[in-house]
Protein backbone atom coordinates (compact mmCIF):
# COMPACT_ATOMS: atom_id res chain seq x y z
CA UNK A 1 0.00 0.00 0.00
CA UNK A 2 1.33 3.41 -0.88
CA UNK A 3 2.03 5.61 2.07
CA UNK A 4 1.29 8.68 0.00
CA UNK A 5 -2.16 10.17 0.05
CA UNK A 6 -4.05 9.23 -3.04
CA UNK A 7 -6.81 11.39 -4.43
CA UNK A 8 -8.85 8.53 -5.86
CA UNK A 9 -9.31 5.89 -3.20
CA UNK A 10 -10.87 2.58 -3.94
CA UNK A 11 -14.51 2.21 -3.01
CA UNK A 12 -13.69 0.16 0.05
CA UNK A 13 -11.02 -2.08 1.48
CA UNK A 14 -8.35 -2.09 4.15
CA UNK A 15 -6.60 1.12 5.10
CA UNK A 16 -4.82 2.55 8.11
CA UNK A 17 -7.23 5.36 8.89
CA UNK A 18 -10.79 6.28 7.97
CA UNK A 19 -11.80 9.90 8.56
CA UNK A 20 -15.55 10.39 8.70
CA UNK A 21 -16.69 13.75 7.40
CA UNK A 22 -15.22 16.25 4.93
CA UNK A 23 -15.87 19.48 6.77
CA UNK A 24 -13.15 21.73 8.15
CA UNK A 25 -12.22 19.12 10.78
CA UNK A 26 -11.98 16.10 8.48
CA UNK A 27 -10.12 18.02 5.77
CA UNK A 28 -7.64 19.40 8.30
CA UNK A 29 -7.04 15.95 9.76
CA UNK A 30 -6.51 14.60 6.26
CA UNK A 31 -3.97 17.24 5.29
CA UNK A 32 -1.96 16.53 8.44
CA UNK A 33 -2.20 12.75 7.97
CA UNK A 34 -0.94 13.16 4.40
CA UNK A 35 1.96 15.25 5.66
CA UNK A 36 2.81 12.39 8.05
CA UNK A 37 2.47 9.84 5.29
CA UNK A 38 -0.45 8.04 6.90
CA UNK A 39 -2.66 6.17 4.42
CA UNK A 40 -6.25 7.25 4.89
CA UNK A 41 -9.56 7.95 3.23
CA UNK A 42 -12.13 10.64 4.03
CA UNK A 43 -15.72 9.45 3.78
CA UNK A 44 -18.35 12.12 3.17
CA UNK A 45 -22.11 11.50 3.10
CA UNK A 46 -22.64 14.37 0.62
CA UNK A 47 -20.12 16.78 -0.81
CA UNK A 48 -17.22 18.61 0.82
CA UNK A 49 -18.62 21.07 3.42
CA UNK A 50 -21.98 19.36 3.22
CA UNK A 51 -23.54 20.78 6.39
CA UNK A 52 -22.48 24.28 5.39
CA UNK A 53 -24.07 23.79 1.99
CA UNK A 54 -27.37 22.36 3.14
CA UNK A 55 -27.98 23.01 6.82
CA UNK A 56 -27.45 26.75 7.27
CA UNK A 57 -29.64 29.79 6.68
CA UNK A 58 -28.92 32.18 3.79
CA UNK A 59 -27.72 35.25 5.67
CA UNK A 60 -25.36 33.37 7.98
CA UNK A 61 -21.77 34.52 8.08
CA UNK A 62 -18.98 33.09 10.19
CA UNK A 63 -18.68 34.66 13.65
CA UNK A 64 -14.91 34.79 13.24
CA UNK A 65 -13.25 37.51 11.14
CA UNK A 66 -11.62 36.42 7.89
CA UNK A 67 -8.04 36.97 9.11
CA UNK A 68 -8.75 34.31 11.67
CA UNK A 69 -10.33 31.80 9.29
CA UNK A 70 -7.37 29.52 8.77
CA UNK A 71 -6.74 25.82 8.24
CA UNK A 72 -3.54 23.78 8.52
CA UNK A 73 -1.25 25.11 5.79
CA UNK A 74 -3.71 27.76 4.66
CA UNK A 75 -4.29 31.33 5.81
CA UNK A 76 -6.84 33.84 4.52
CA UNK A 77 -5.50 35.64 1.49
CA UNK A 78 -8.53 37.61 0.35
CA UNK A 79 -8.84 41.37 0.35
CA UNK A 80 -11.22 41.71 3.32
CA UNK A 81 -9.38 40.41 6.39
CA UNK A 82 -11.75 42.17 8.79
CA UNK A 83 -14.88 40.90 7.04
CA UNK A 84 -16.88 37.79 7.82
CA UNK A 85 -17.20 34.96 5.36
CA UNK A 86 -20.58 34.21 3.91
CA UNK A 87 -21.37 30.53 3.59
CA UNK A 88 -20.86 30.16 -0.20
CA UNK A 89 -17.38 31.64 0.21
CA UNK A 90 -16.62 29.26 3.06
CA UNK A 91 -17.84 26.31 0.98
CA UNK A 92 -15.54 27.48 -1.83
CA UNK A 93 -12.64 27.86 0.61
CA UNK A 94 -13.11 24.33 1.93
CA UNK A 95 -13.57 22.85 -1.54
CA UNK A 96 -10.41 24.53 -2.81
CA UNK A 97 -8.55 23.39 0.30
CA UNK A 98 -9.64 19.79 -0.27
CA UNK A 99 -8.38 19.93 -3.86
CA UNK A 100 -5.12 21.71 -3.04
CA UNK A 101 -4.33 19.32 -0.20
CA UNK A 102 -5.25 16.35 -2.42
CA UNK A 103 -7.62 15.11 0.26
CA UNK A 104 -8.61 11.52 -0.63
CA UNK A 105 -12.29 12.21 -0.15
CA UNK A 106 -14.96 9.79 -1.22
CA UNK A 107 -18.17 11.77 -1.51
CA UNK A 108 -21.76 10.49 -1.35
CA UNK A 109 -20.64 7.80 1.03
CA UNK A 110 -22.81 7.50 4.09
CA UNK A 111 -21.45 5.65 7.10
CA UNK A 112 -24.11 3.47 8.67
CA UNK A 113 -21.92 1.77 11.27
CA UNK A 114 -18.52 1.89 12.88
CA UNK A 115 -17.90 -1.30 14.81
CA UNK A 116 -14.90 -2.97 16.45
CA UNK A 117 -13.25 -5.64 14.36
CA UNK A 118 -10.03 -7.36 15.35
CA UNK A 119 -7.67 -4.69 16.60
CA UNK A 120 -9.36 -2.03 14.50
CA UNK A 121 -12.73 -1.05 13.11
CA UNK A 122 -15.13 -1.88 10.36
CA UNK A 123 -16.71 1.16 8.75
CA UNK A 124 -19.88 0.15 6.96
CA UNK A 125 -21.03 2.47 4.17
CA UNK A 126 -23.52 2.48 1.31
CA UNK A 127 -20.50 1.85 -0.92
CA UNK A 128 -18.87 -1.04 0.84
CA UNK A 129 -17.06 -1.82 4.05
CA UNK A 130 -13.75 -0.27 5.05
CA UNK A 131 -11.44 -1.94 7.55
CA UNK A 132 -9.25 0.52 9.40
CA UNK A 133 -6.79 0.42 12.25
CA UNK A 134 -8.01 3.81 13.41
CA UNK A 135 -11.00 6.06 12.82
CA UNK A 136 -11.35 9.83 13.21
CA UNK A 137 -14.92 10.98 13.73
CA UNK A 138 -15.15 14.42 12.14
CA UNK A 139 -18.85 14.38 11.40
CA UNK A 140 -19.60 17.66 13.12
CA UNK A 141 -21.08 18.97 16.34
CA UNK A 142 -24.32 20.26 14.85
CA UNK A 143 -25.92 17.29 13.07
CA UNK A 144 -29.31 17.71 14.64
CA UNK A 145 -31.15 20.71 16.00
CA UNK A 146 -32.12 20.25 19.62
CA UNK A 147 -35.84 20.74 20.12
CA UNK A 148 -37.19 20.70 23.68
CA UNK A 149 -39.94 18.24 24.60
CA UNK A 150 -42.39 21.12 25.04
CA UNK A 151 -42.50 21.29 21.22
CA UNK A 152 -44.87 18.31 21.14
CA UNK A 153 -47.40 20.24 23.22
CA UNK A 154 -47.81 23.08 20.74
CA UNK A 155 -51.09 23.18 18.83
CA UNK A 156 -50.90 21.53 15.40
CA UNK A 157 -51.61 24.70 13.47
CA UNK A 158 -48.42 26.34 14.75
CA UNK A 159 -45.63 25.91 12.23
CA UNK A 160 -42.41 24.80 13.88
CA UNK A 161 -39.06 25.50 12.27
CA UNK A 162 -35.54 24.56 13.28
CA UNK A 163 -32.49 26.43 11.94
CA UNK A 164 -32.21 23.56 9.43
CA UNK A 165 -35.64 24.43 8.00
CA UNK A 166 -35.21 28.19 8.06
CA UNK A 167 -33.49 29.74 5.07
CA UNK A 168 -34.90 33.26 4.84
CA UNK A 169 -37.42 35.50 6.63
CA UNK A 170 -39.69 35.32 3.58
CA UNK A 171 -40.14 31.57 4.26
CA UNK A 172 -41.98 32.38 7.45
CA UNK A 173 -45.76 32.62 7.25
CA UNK A 174 -47.72 35.78 7.99
CA UNK A 175 -48.26 36.41 11.67
CA UNK A 176 -46.14 36.54 14.77
CA UNK A 177 -43.07 34.47 15.42
CA UNK A 178 -41.76 33.09 18.67
CA UNK A 179 -38.00 32.56 18.55
CA UNK A 180 -36.89 30.26 21.35
CA UNK A 181 -33.26 30.69 22.37
CA UNK A 182 -30.90 33.63 22.84
CA UNK A 183 -27.62 32.37 21.45
CA UNK A 184 -26.08 33.56 18.17
CA UNK A 185 -28.70 31.63 16.19
CA UNK A 186 -31.71 32.90 18.11
CA UNK A 187 -30.62 36.52 18.04
CA UNK A 188 -29.61 36.48 14.39
CA UNK A 189 -32.90 34.93 13.29
CA UNK A 190 -34.98 37.19 15.56
CA UNK A 191 -33.15 40.25 14.24
CA UNK A 192 -33.63 39.21 10.62
CA UNK A 193 -37.33 38.50 11.15
CA UNK A 194 -37.80 41.89 12.80
CA UNK A 195 -36.03 43.57 9.89
CA UNK A 196 -38.61 41.90 7.62
CA UNK A 197 -41.45 43.34 9.64
CA UNK A 198 -42.43 40.19 11.54
CA UNK A 199 -43.68 40.66 15.10
CA UNK A 200 -41.13 38.69 17.11
CA UNK A 201 -41.16 37.40 20.66
CA UNK A 202 -37.83 36.06 21.83
CA UNK A 203 -37.73 33.62 24.75
CA UNK A 204 -34.36 33.96 26.47
CA UNK A 205 -32.71 31.59 28.90
CA UNK A 206 -29.05 31.76 29.88
CA UNK A 207 -26.98 33.47 27.24
CA UNK A 208 -23.54 34.89 26.52
CA UNK A 209 -23.43 38.62 25.75
CA UNK A 210 -20.47 40.09 23.92
CA UNK A 211 -19.75 43.22 21.85
CA UNK A 212 -18.55 42.68 18.28
CA UNK A 213 -15.69 45.12 18.76
CA UNK A 214 -13.95 46.41 21.84
CA UNK A 215 -11.18 48.96 22.22
CA UNK A 216 -10.65 49.24 18.49
CA UNK A 217 -10.36 45.54 17.68
CA UNK A 218 -12.66 42.62 16.97
CA UNK A 219 -13.63 40.73 20.12
CA UNK A 220 -12.03 37.58 18.67
CA UNK A 221 -8.72 39.42 18.49
CA UNK A 222 -8.89 39.98 22.24
CA UNK A 223 -10.17 36.49 23.07
CA UNK A 224 -7.08 35.14 21.33
CA UNK A 225 -4.67 37.81 22.63
CA UNK A 226 -5.58 37.37 26.27
CA UNK A 227 -5.20 33.62 26.07
CA UNK A 228 -8.84 32.59 26.38
CA UNK A 229 -8.93 30.77 23.04
CA UNK A 230 -5.88 28.73 24.01
CA UNK A 231 -7.18 27.66 27.42
CA UNK A 232 -6.90 23.90 27.46
CA UNK A 233 -9.72 21.51 28.26
CA UNK A 234 -7.76 19.93 31.10
CA UNK A 235 -7.26 23.29 32.78
CA UNK A 236 -10.91 24.28 32.82
CA UNK A 237 -12.63 23.95 36.15
CA UNK A 238 -16.06 22.88 34.95
CA UNK A 239 -15.46 21.30 31.57
CA UNK A 240 -18.93 19.91 30.97
CA UNK A 241 -20.47 23.33 31.65
CA UNK A 242 -17.90 24.93 29.37
CA UNK A 243 -18.80 22.52 26.60
CA UNK A 244 -22.51 23.23 27.02
CA UNK A 245 -22.03 27.01 26.86
CA UNK A 246 -24.29 28.54 24.22
CA UNK A 247 -22.63 30.41 21.35
CA UNK A 248 -22.07 34.11 22.10
CA UNK A 249 -24.64 36.64 20.90
CA UNK A 250 -22.60 37.68 17.88
CA UNK A 251 -23.23 38.16 14.19
CA UNK A 252 -20.61 38.25 11.45
CA UNK A 253 -21.20 41.91 10.62
CA UNK A 254 -19.89 45.33 11.55
CA UNK A 255 -23.33 46.89 11.08
CA UNK A 256 -24.15 46.63 14.79
CA UNK A 257 -21.95 47.36 17.78
CA UNK A 258 -23.73 44.60 19.66
CA UNK A 259 -26.49 42.14 18.81
CA UNK A 260 -28.08 41.67 22.20
CA UNK A 261 -31.48 41.66 23.89
CA UNK A 262 -31.42 45.48 24.00
CA UNK A 263 -31.04 45.56 20.21
CA UNK A 264 -33.88 43.06 19.74
CA UNK A 265 -36.15 45.29 21.84
CA UNK A 266 -34.95 48.42 20.05
CA UNK A 267 -36.12 46.78 16.81
CA UNK A 268 -39.55 46.17 18.32
CA UNK A 269 -39.08 42.62 19.55
CA UNK A 270 -40.58 41.43 22.81
CA UNK A 271 -38.29 39.55 25.17
CA UNK A 272 -39.61 36.98 27.64
CA UNK A 273 -38.05 34.43 29.97
CA UNK A 274 -37.20 30.91 28.93
CA UNK A 275 -40.08 28.91 27.40
CA UNK A 276 -41.12 26.44 30.08
CA UNK A 277 -44.43 24.98 29.05
CA UNK A 278 -47.55 25.07 26.92
CA UNK A 279 -51.07 24.77 28.31
CA UNK A 280 -53.49 24.50 25.40
CA UNK A 281 -53.04 27.83 23.61
CA UNK A 282 -50.96 29.49 26.28
CA UNK A 283 -47.19 29.63 26.36
CA UNK A 284 -45.57 29.74 29.78
CA UNK A 285 -42.30 31.51 30.37
CA UNK A 286 -39.88 31.45 33.26
CA UNK A 287 -39.83 34.38 35.66
CA UNK A 288 -36.03 34.27 35.69
CA UNK A 289 -35.38 36.72 32.83
CA UNK A 290 -33.89 39.38 35.12
CA UNK A 291 -31.49 36.87 36.55
CA UNK A 292 -30.25 35.44 33.25
CA UNK A 293 -29.73 38.98 31.93
CA UNK A 294 -27.82 39.95 35.03
CA UNK A 295 -25.68 36.82 34.85
CA UNK A 296 -24.84 37.61 31.22
CA UNK A 297 -24.03 41.26 32.01
CA UNK A 298 -21.79 40.29 34.94
CA UNK A 299 -19.97 37.69 32.84
CA UNK A 300 -19.47 40.18 30.01
CA UNK A 301 -18.07 42.77 32.44
CA UNK A 302 -15.67 40.16 33.84
CA UNK A 303 -14.57 39.25 30.31
CA UNK A 304 -14.03 42.90 29.32
CA UNK A 305 -12.06 43.53 32.51
CA UNK A 306 -9.84 40.58 31.66
CA UNK A 307 -9.37 41.93 28.14
CA UNK A 308 -8.50 45.36 29.59
CA UNK A 309 -5.32 43.97 31.13
CA UNK A 310 -4.06 42.91 27.72
CA UNK A 311 -5.50 45.95 25.92
CA UNK A 312 -3.90 48.38 28.39
CA UNK A 313 -0.54 46.72 27.88
CA UNK A 314 -0.98 47.13 24.12
CA UNK A 315 -2.02 50.79 24.53
CA UNK A 316 -5.33 50.12 22.83
CA UNK A 317 -7.92 52.92 22.68
CA UNK A 318 -9.81 53.52 25.94
CA UNK A 319 -12.44 51.10 27.17
CA UNK A 320 -16.03 51.64 26.03
CA UNK A 321 -18.81 50.94 28.45
CA UNK A 322 -21.95 49.10 27.49
CA UNK A 323 -25.38 49.74 28.94
CA UNK A 324 -26.75 46.90 31.04
CA UNK A 325 -29.39 44.67 29.50
CA UNK A 326 -32.73 46.30 30.15
CA UNK A 327 -35.79 44.13 30.17
CA UNK A 328 -39.30 44.80 31.38
CA UNK A 329 -39.39 44.65 35.18
CA UNK A 330 -42.33 42.24 34.93
CA UNK A 331 -41.99 40.48 31.58
CA UNK A 332 -44.92 38.44 30.34
CA UNK A 333 -45.11 35.02 32.00
CA UNK A 334 -47.76 33.72 29.65
CA UNK A 335 -48.67 34.46 26.06
CA UNK A 336 -51.86 33.44 24.32
CA UNK A 337 -50.93 32.12 20.87
CA UNK A 338 -54.22 33.21 19.33
CA UNK A 339 -54.43 36.62 20.91
CA UNK A 340 -50.86 37.43 19.85
CA UNK A 341 -51.35 35.86 16.40
CA UNK A 342 -48.27 33.66 16.80
CA UNK A 343 -48.18 31.35 13.79
CA UNK A 344 -44.56 30.15 13.84
CA UNK A 345 -42.14 28.91 16.46
CA UNK A 346 -38.43 28.87 15.59
CA UNK A 347 -36.36 26.55 17.77
CA UNK A 348 -32.95 28.14 18.21
CA UNK A 349 -32.28 25.82 21.10
CA UNK A 350 -28.95 24.38 20.08
CA UNK A 351 -27.58 21.48 18.10
CA UNK A 352 -26.11 18.13 18.92
CA UNK A 353 -24.03 15.54 17.11
CA UNK A 354 -25.64 12.37 15.79
CA UNK A 355 -23.80 9.19 16.73
CA UNK A 356 -26.47 6.63 15.98
CA UNK A 357 -24.01 4.89 13.67
CA UNK A 358 -21.31 4.53 16.33
CA UNK A 359 -21.58 0.85 17.29
CA UNK A 360 -18.72 1.04 19.76
CA UNK A 361 -19.59 1.30 23.48
CA UNK A 362 -18.23 4.82 23.87
CA UNK A 363 -21.41 6.87 24.35
CA UNK A 364 -22.43 8.18 27.75
CA UNK A 365 -26.02 8.20 29.01
CA UNK A 366 -26.60 11.54 27.27
CA UNK A 367 -25.43 10.12 23.95
CA UNK A 368 -22.13 12.04 23.93
CA UNK A 369 -18.81 10.43 23.09
CA UNK A 370 -16.65 9.62 26.09
CA UNK A 371 -13.31 11.13 25.16
CA UNK A 372 -10.26 12.77 26.67
CA UNK A 373 -9.55 15.81 24.52
CA UNK A 374 -10.62 13.96 21.36
CA UNK A 375 -9.01 10.63 22.24
CA UNK A 376 -12.13 8.48 22.44
CA UNK A 377 -12.50 5.83 25.11
CA UNK A 378 -11.68 2.99 22.65
CA UNK A 379 -8.20 2.34 21.21
CA UNK A 380 -7.73 3.90 17.78
CA UNK A 381 -10.92 5.94 17.86
CA UNK A 382 -10.69 9.73 17.74
CA UNK A 383 -13.00 12.71 17.38
CA UNK A 384 -12.39 16.21 16.04
CA UNK A 385 -14.44 19.37 15.75
CA UNK A 386 -16.39 19.44 19.02
CA UNK A 387 -16.77 22.60 21.12
CA UNK A 388 -14.03 23.03 23.73
CA UNK A 389 -12.66 19.66 22.69
CA UNK A 390 -9.05 20.42 23.55
CA UNK A 391 -9.12 24.21 23.76
CA UNK A 392 -11.69 26.97 23.95
CA UNK A 393 -11.01 27.71 20.29
CA UNK A 394 -11.94 24.13 19.31
CA UNK A 395 -15.44 25.42 18.56
CA UNK A 396 -14.16 27.57 15.71
CA UNK A 397 -12.65 26.82 12.32
CA UNK A 398 -9.31 28.41 13.24
CA UNK A 399 -9.22 26.21 16.34
CA UNK A 400 -9.09 22.96 14.43
CA UNK A 401 -5.43 23.18 13.45
CA UNK A 402 -3.90 22.69 16.89
CA UNK A 403 -6.47 20.02 17.79
CA UNK A 404 -5.92 18.13 14.53
CA UNK A 405 -2.18 18.29 15.07
CA UNK A 406 -2.50 16.80 18.57
CA UNK A 407 -4.94 14.13 17.48
CA UNK A 408 -3.07 13.02 14.36
CA UNK A 409 0.16 12.85 16.37
CA UNK A 410 -1.52 10.64 18.98
CA UNK A 411 -2.96 8.56 16.16
CA UNK A 412 0.40 8.14 14.42
CA UNK A 413 1.97 6.89 17.65
CA UNK A 414 -0.93 4.53 18.09
CA UNK A 415 -0.51 3.15 14.54
CA UNK A 416 3.18 2.59 15.17
CA UNK A 417 2.39 0.64 18.33
CA UNK A 418 -0.20 -1.46 16.56
CA UNK A 419 2.18 -2.22 13.72
CA UNK A 420 4.99 -3.07 16.11
CA UNK A 421 2.71 -5.45 17.99
CA UNK A 422 1.52 -7.00 14.76
CA UNK A 423 5.07 -7.62 13.57
CA UNK A 424 5.94 -8.97 17.04
CA UNK A 425 3.10 -11.42 16.61
CA UNK A 426 1.17 -10.36 19.69
CA UNK A 427 -1.97 -9.90 17.72
CA UNK A 428 -3.38 -12.25 15.19
CA UNK A 429 -6.35 -11.50 13.06
CA UNK A 430 -8.92 -14.27 13.31
Amino acid at each position, binding site marked *: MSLLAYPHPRAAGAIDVVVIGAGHAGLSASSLLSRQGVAHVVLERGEVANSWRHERWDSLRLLTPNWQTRLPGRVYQGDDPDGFMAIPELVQTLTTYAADMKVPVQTHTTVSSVRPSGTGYEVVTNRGIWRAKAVIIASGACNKPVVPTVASELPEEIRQLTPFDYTHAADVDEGGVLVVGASATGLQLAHELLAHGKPVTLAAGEHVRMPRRYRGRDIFHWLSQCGIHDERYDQIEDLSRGRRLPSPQLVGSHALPMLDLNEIQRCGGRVTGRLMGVRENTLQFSG*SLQNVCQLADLKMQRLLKLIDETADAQHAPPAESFAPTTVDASPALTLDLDRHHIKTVVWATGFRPDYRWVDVPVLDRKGHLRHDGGVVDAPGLYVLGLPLMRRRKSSFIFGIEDDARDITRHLSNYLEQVKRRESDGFYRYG
Partner: protein
Amino acid sequence: MTNITVETENGVNVAALLGAREALTEAPEAASFVWRAACEWKNGTHTESCVEGFFGLGEEQRHVREFRYDTDHPEIFASEDKGSTPVEMILVGLAGCLTAGIASVASNRAIRLNSVTATLEAGMDIQGILGIDGDVRNGFNGVTVSYQIDADATEEEIAALVAQSQKRSAVFDIITNPTNVNVQVNQ
Protein backbone atom coordinates in the same frame (compact mmCIF):
# COMPACT_ATOMS: atom_id res chain seq x y z
CA MET B 1 -0.77 29.18 69.95
CA THR B 2 -1.90 26.30 67.83
CA ASN B 3 -2.63 26.93 64.21
CA ILE B 4 -5.99 25.58 63.35
CA THR B 5 -6.68 24.72 59.75
CA VAL B 6 -10.12 26.00 58.90
CA GLU B 7 -11.69 23.58 56.48
CA THR B 8 -14.93 25.42 56.20
CA GLU B 9 -15.37 28.96 54.94
CA ASN B 10 -18.52 30.66 56.22
CA GLY B 11 -19.42 27.37 57.90
CA VAL B 12 -19.98 25.69 54.53
CA ASN B 13 -18.11 22.46 53.86
CA VAL B 14 -17.16 23.13 50.27
CA ALA B 15 -15.12 19.95 49.89
CA ALA B 16 -18.16 17.89 50.85
CA LEU B 17 -20.38 19.74 48.36
CA LEU B 18 -17.88 19.33 45.54
CA GLY B 19 -17.37 15.70 46.49
CA ALA B 20 -21.12 15.11 46.37
CA ARG B 21 -21.29 16.76 42.96
CA GLU B 22 -18.59 14.48 41.63
CA ALA B 23 -20.09 11.35 43.21
CA LEU B 24 -23.56 12.12 41.86
CA THR B 25 -22.22 12.76 38.36
CA GLU B 26 -20.94 9.19 38.44
CA ALA B 27 -24.10 7.78 40.06
CA PRO B 28 -27.00 9.89 38.78
CA GLU B 29 -29.62 7.56 40.28
CA ALA B 30 -28.47 8.54 43.79
CA ALA B 31 -29.34 12.13 42.90
CA SER B 32 -33.07 11.33 42.86
CA PHE B 33 -34.52 12.86 46.01
CA VAL B 34 -38.11 12.95 47.28
CA TRP B 35 -39.05 15.65 49.75
CA ARG B 36 -42.06 15.18 52.02
CA ALA B 37 -44.25 17.07 54.38
CA ALA B 38 -47.29 15.95 56.33
CA CYS B 39 -50.01 18.21 57.60
CA GLU B 40 -53.01 18.09 59.87
CA TRP B 41 -55.87 20.53 60.01
CA LYS B 42 -56.38 21.87 63.52
CA ASN B 43 -59.25 24.31 63.52
CA GLY B 44 -60.45 27.19 61.39
CA THR B 45 -57.64 28.10 59.00
CA HIS B 46 -54.98 26.73 61.35
CA THR B 47 -52.94 23.79 60.10
CA GLU B 48 -49.90 22.13 61.59
CA SER B 49 -47.39 20.62 59.21
CA CYS B 50 -44.28 18.64 59.94
CA VAL B 51 -41.25 17.40 58.06
CA GLU B 52 -38.90 14.68 59.15
CA GLY B 53 -38.18 11.95 56.62
CA PHE B 54 -37.09 12.28 53.02
CA PHE B 55 -35.56 10.01 50.39
CA GLY B 56 -32.16 10.51 48.83
CA LEU B 57 -28.83 8.88 47.98
CA GLY B 58 -30.79 5.71 47.29
CA GLU B 59 -32.35 5.31 50.74
CA GLU B 60 -34.67 6.78 53.35
CA GLN B 61 -33.14 9.64 55.30
CA ARG B 62 -34.20 11.58 58.40
CA HIS B 63 -33.60 15.10 59.65
CA VAL B 64 -31.89 15.20 63.06
CA ARG B 65 -35.34 15.87 64.47
CA GLU B 66 -38.88 16.58 63.39
CA PHE B 67 -39.65 20.20 62.48
CA ARG B 68 -43.16 21.58 62.97
CA TYR B 69 -44.76 24.59 61.35
CA ASP B 70 -48.05 26.31 62.06
CA THR B 71 -49.84 28.07 59.26
CA ASP B 72 -52.88 30.20 59.74
CA HIS B 73 -54.22 33.55 58.62
CA PRO B 74 -54.14 36.90 60.42
CA GLU B 75 -56.97 38.30 62.46
CA ILE B 76 -58.08 40.68 59.72
CA PHE B 77 -59.18 37.51 57.88
CA ALA B 78 -61.19 36.62 60.96
CA SER B 79 -58.65 33.90 61.75
CA GLU B 80 -56.75 33.26 64.94
CA ASP B 81 -53.26 33.95 63.57
CA LYS B 82 -51.63 30.88 65.08
CA GLY B 83 -48.89 30.88 62.48
CA SER B 84 -47.60 32.55 59.36
CA THR B 85 -49.74 32.48 56.26
CA PRO B 86 -48.85 29.72 53.77
CA VAL B 87 -47.76 32.36 51.24
CA GLU B 88 -45.33 33.77 53.78
CA MET B 89 -43.91 30.25 54.11
CA ILE B 90 -43.12 30.44 50.41
CA LEU B 91 -41.09 33.59 51.06
CA VAL B 92 -39.38 31.83 53.98
CA GLY B 93 -38.47 28.97 51.62
CA LEU B 94 -37.16 31.35 48.96
CA ALA B 95 -35.12 33.33 51.50
CA GLY B 96 -33.64 30.17 52.98
CA CYS B 97 -32.78 28.72 49.60
CA LEU B 98 -31.22 31.82 48.05
CA THR B 99 -29.24 32.63 51.17
CA ALA B 100 -27.92 29.08 51.52
CA GLY B 101 -26.90 29.37 47.88
CA ILE B 102 -25.09 32.65 48.50
CA ALA B 103 -23.15 31.10 51.37
CA SER B 104 -22.23 28.03 49.31
CA VAL B 105 -21.17 29.98 46.24
CA ALA B 106 -19.22 32.47 48.38
CA SER B 107 -17.39 29.66 50.11
CA ASN B 108 -16.58 27.97 46.83
CA ARG B 109 -15.17 31.29 45.59
CA ALA B 110 -13.26 31.79 48.88
CA ILE B 111 -15.24 34.92 49.74
CA ARG B 112 -15.70 35.53 53.46
CA LEU B 113 -19.21 36.67 54.38
CA ASN B 114 -19.52 39.00 57.35
CA SER B 115 -23.25 39.41 57.25
CA VAL B 116 -26.09 38.58 54.91
CA THR B 117 -29.59 39.86 55.48
CA ALA B 118 -32.53 40.11 53.16
CA THR B 119 -36.04 41.39 53.12
CA LEU B 120 -38.63 39.81 50.87
CA GLU B 121 -41.85 41.23 49.56
CA ALA B 122 -44.53 39.67 47.44
CA GLY B 123 -47.50 41.55 46.09
CA MET B 124 -50.87 39.87 45.85
CA ASP B 125 -54.32 41.02 44.78
CA ILE B 126 -56.64 39.00 46.99
CA GLN B 127 -59.51 39.52 44.59
CA GLY B 128 -58.11 36.35 43.06
CA ILE B 129 -58.43 34.04 46.06
CA LEU B 130 -61.74 35.59 47.00
CA GLY B 131 -63.09 34.85 43.53
CA ILE B 132 -64.05 38.46 42.92
CA ASP B 133 -62.24 38.88 39.61
CA GLY B 134 -61.47 35.86 37.43
CA ASP B 135 -58.71 37.80 35.62
CA VAL B 136 -56.69 38.15 38.83
CA ARG B 137 -54.43 35.25 39.64
CA ASN B 138 -54.45 33.70 43.09
CA GLY B 139 -50.74 33.81 43.62
CA PHE B 140 -48.12 36.50 43.86
CA ASN B 141 -48.01 39.13 41.15
CA GLY B 142 -44.30 39.44 41.79
CA VAL B 143 -41.61 38.86 44.39
CA THR B 144 -38.86 41.27 45.37
CA VAL B 145 -35.86 40.11 47.35
CA SER B 146 -33.46 42.78 48.68
CA TYR B 147 -30.12 41.63 50.02
CA GLN B 148 -27.72 43.53 52.23
CA ILE B 149 -24.39 41.75 52.10
CA ASP B 150 -21.18 42.60 53.86
CA ALA B 151 -18.37 40.46 52.49
CA ASP B 152 -14.68 40.65 51.72
CA ALA B 153 -15.41 41.11 48.01
CA THR B 154 -16.06 43.76 45.38
CA GLU B 155 -19.52 44.97 44.47
CA GLU B 156 -19.38 42.96 41.22
CA GLU B 157 -18.31 39.81 43.04
CA ILE B 158 -21.21 40.18 45.46
CA ALA B 159 -23.65 40.75 42.58
CA ALA B 160 -22.26 37.62 40.91
CA LEU B 161 -22.81 35.59 44.11
CA VAL B 162 -26.45 36.60 44.24
CA ALA B 163 -26.96 35.95 40.52
CA GLN B 164 -25.29 32.53 40.68
CA SER B 165 -27.33 31.62 43.75
CA GLN B 166 -30.55 32.24 41.80
CA LYS B 167 -29.25 30.13 38.94
CA ARG B 168 -28.76 27.16 41.26
CA SER B 169 -31.76 27.69 43.56
CA ALA B 170 -34.52 25.08 43.76
CA VAL B 171 -37.10 27.42 45.28
CA PHE B 172 -36.30 30.19 42.79
CA ASP B 173 -36.94 27.63 40.04
CA ILE B 174 -40.13 26.39 41.72
CA ILE B 175 -41.51 29.92 41.91
CA THR B 176 -40.38 31.14 38.49
CA ASN B 177 -41.32 28.04 36.49
CA PRO B 178 -44.47 25.96 36.18
CA THR B 179 -44.69 22.65 38.02
CA ASN B 180 -47.30 19.94 37.61
CA VAL B 181 -49.19 19.47 40.85
CA ASN B 182 -51.32 16.40 41.38
CA VAL B 183 -53.68 16.57 44.35
CA GLN B 184 -55.47 13.31 45.17
CA VAL B 185 -58.02 12.29 47.76
CA ASN B 186 -57.38 8.89 49.28
CA GLN B 187 -60.53 7.12 50.42
